[in-house]
């Protein structure tokens, strides 16, 4: 690592750590939460499958708080925001909700959430970018519950045949992908080709790898067509135009069969991929054929895309005291670990990663590294429009119909007219 890179990485860490700790200090306005058992009724809304497993998981907490009645409602995740926004408008909110980093900006803009009380959690205990997701103007409005980062995942068996290890740089990624094609893979690498907002999230990690990013450091301006971002999109596009990745697939569900059959030999994807492959092909297949590594580094280093779920307490909820007590309980290292074992959600608390249950899985070594530097999408309310548009336009580059600069100039203009929202 060159000195320049080292300085940049250090600056990045200091900056995130600083804002994170500032966030905690500024949240100090809310009263501290005591240690007495929680009482009353507690309503939790959760989008996703967690709501199915959580009731049984909370048995210990309910035993320790016998006068508390927890009610969990499972919500279809795609309509979660619509339901919560209507409830916020009508003042009929639950006490706790789980937010996703990808979509929480517009929910947070409603000012419906309570700041995290003083001393409830320590910002340093969490992966920095996961914590930062919840900070607005220096105040934290949520506590990370789980955290994910994309990794470079590849067919170990094919790589071994080619005598290669995981690529560490952009250049090595291309060499690797070519070698995989020589080993019989139709495509050496696979990048997202849904041409939607997740595509833009994928470009965000390449942008950071190139030393760029979509927002200025003060988060006040779009910097989508910066030199570094153009370089990132050019590199991303060249993977397609040089025939190393297909601009047509795999899409979503196809990823598992394409990877299994060797149609693709590598992909940037989150840690859930292991679980999908185990479900489809069994543990033996996965042990023999899947390996993970941090994302290949660009000129500025290796960065992954972050996905994080946080617990947030509603300002108009009826039982904030009990709500915060549950949030505190769920973000203890022991609880985080138990939840990982019960459900498979990766802990947002760093200490939980030392347990053999996680540390003993070699596929997660790269994940742990990736989480240290994972980068969030721009936490602004207009990201939904801007990211969706960016994802659509990226197809032009993948198909060689426009240059990276043309596309990013266009997206920058679009973003400027959309603004940064609230």
């Amino acid at each position, binding site marked *: 690592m060159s000195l320049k890179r080292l300085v940049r990485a250090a600056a990045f860490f200091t900056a995130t750590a600083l804002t994170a700790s500032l966030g905690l200090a500024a949240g100090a306005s809310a009263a501290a939460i005591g240690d007495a058992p929680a009482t009353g009724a507690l*309503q939790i809304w959760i*989008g*996703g*499958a*967690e*709501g*199915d*497993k959580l009731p049984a998981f909370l048995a210990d907490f309910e035993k320790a708080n016998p006068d508390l009645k927890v*009610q969990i*409602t*499972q*919500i*279809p*995740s*795609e*309509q979660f925001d*619509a*339901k919560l926004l*209507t*409830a916020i*408008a*009508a*003042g*009929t909110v*639950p006490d706790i909700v789980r937010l996703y980093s990808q979509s929480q900006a517009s929910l947070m803009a409603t000012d419906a959430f309570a700041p995290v009380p003083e001393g409830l959690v320590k910002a340093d205990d969490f992966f920095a970018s996961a914590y930062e997701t919840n900070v607005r103007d220096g105040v934290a409005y949520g506590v990370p519950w789980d955290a994910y980062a994309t990794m470079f995942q590849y067919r170990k068996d094919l790589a071994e045949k080619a005598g290669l290890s995981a690529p560490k740089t952009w250049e090595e990624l291309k060499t690797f992908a070519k070698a995989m094609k020589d080993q019989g893979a139709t495509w050496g690498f696979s990048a997202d080709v849904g041409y939607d907002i997740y595509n833009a999230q994928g470009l965000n990690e390449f942008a950071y790898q190139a030393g760029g990013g979509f927002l200025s450091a003060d988060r006040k301006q779009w910097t989508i067509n910066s030199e570094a971002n153009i370089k990132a999109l050019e590199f991303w596009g060249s993977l397609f135009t040089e025939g190393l990745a297909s601009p047509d697939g795999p899409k979503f*569900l196809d990823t*598992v*069969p*394409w990877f*299994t*059959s060797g149609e693709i030999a590598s992909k940037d994807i989150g840690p*859930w991929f292991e*679980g*999908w492959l185990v*479900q*489809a*092909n*069994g543990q033996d297949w996965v042990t023999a054929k899947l390996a993970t590594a941090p994302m290949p580094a660009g000129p500025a280093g290796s960065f992954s895309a972050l996905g994080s779920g946080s617990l947030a307490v509603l300002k108009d909820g009826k039982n904030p005291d009990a709500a915060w007590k549950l949030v505190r309980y769920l973000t203890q290292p022991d609880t985080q670990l138990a939840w990982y074992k019960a*459900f*498979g959600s990766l802990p947002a608390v760093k200490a939980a990663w030392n347990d053999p249950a996680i540390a003993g899985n070699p596929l997660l070594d790269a994940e742990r590294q990736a989480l240290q530097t994972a980068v969030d999408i721009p936490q602004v309310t207009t990201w939904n429009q801007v990211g969706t548009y960016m994802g659509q336009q990226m197809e032009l580059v993948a198909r060689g119909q426009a240059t990276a600069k043309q596309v990013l100039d266009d997206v920058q203009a679009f973003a400027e007219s959309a603004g940064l929202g609230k």
Partner: protein
Amino acid sequence: MMSEGTSRGTVALYATLTLVAGLMLLPFAWVFFGAFKSQAEILAAPGAWLPRSFTDFSNFVELFARRQFGTYLGNSLVVSGLTVVSNVFFSSLAGYALAKIPFRGSRFVFGCIIAAMMIPYIALFVPSFFIIVQMGLLNTLTGIFLPIAVMPIGVFIMRQFALSVPNELLEAARLDGAGEFRIFFSIFLPLVGPAIATVAIITFLNSWNYFLWPLIVAQNQDTFTLPVGLAVASQGAKSTEYGLLLSGAIIVLLPVLILFVFLQRYFVRGIAATGLK
């Protein structure tokens, strides 16, 4: 020569139609077969069309035993049942009055009802929600069905049908001394059976597939309806539970399919009469 050409043409026509119909049915077949597959079978590469076993009901068992599908099914039946009964009753009353009882402003009232059909339902969403909250009906089945208790389309259909009922019949009854309600129940209703069936079918389909509103009004799983419950049950820890999703879709589809088989005649007539489905 002529007849041979025609029959050959007919054969070709039917062969093409059968082929196209078969193609149209393929996705449904995939859903049906998928309902009997495990997640691994669905995700396997290359996928197989037929499940390993047609007697493996574990997806269905999981839905009913662990995922409260019994509750959701019950709620859906109650909501749809109430919707159908209330729409048929109020629409035919309104349709009868608008078509057969001359009163001042009758055309204006009918115009308002037609205008209401033009308002997209999403525009009424938040106001409706506020009203339901104020009425204390949040998280109740009544709160779910109330906004669609009388649909303008039902009034429209009943009124158009009522126009075709001969005035002479009603006048004869009036001369015999029957009151307005007696005429309505004994003379009018028996004559508009097809219209009632049409309204019942349209409102049933609407309420049965109703998704966003029940999701917003229901505050916990005990008041979820089938479509909402299906969306929740198919969320897996790592990815969508496709087996549960597909078997759940079969459960949602089944009542509609049964209804269709028995009321096919009215279905087609209803859709043709209104240009809507």
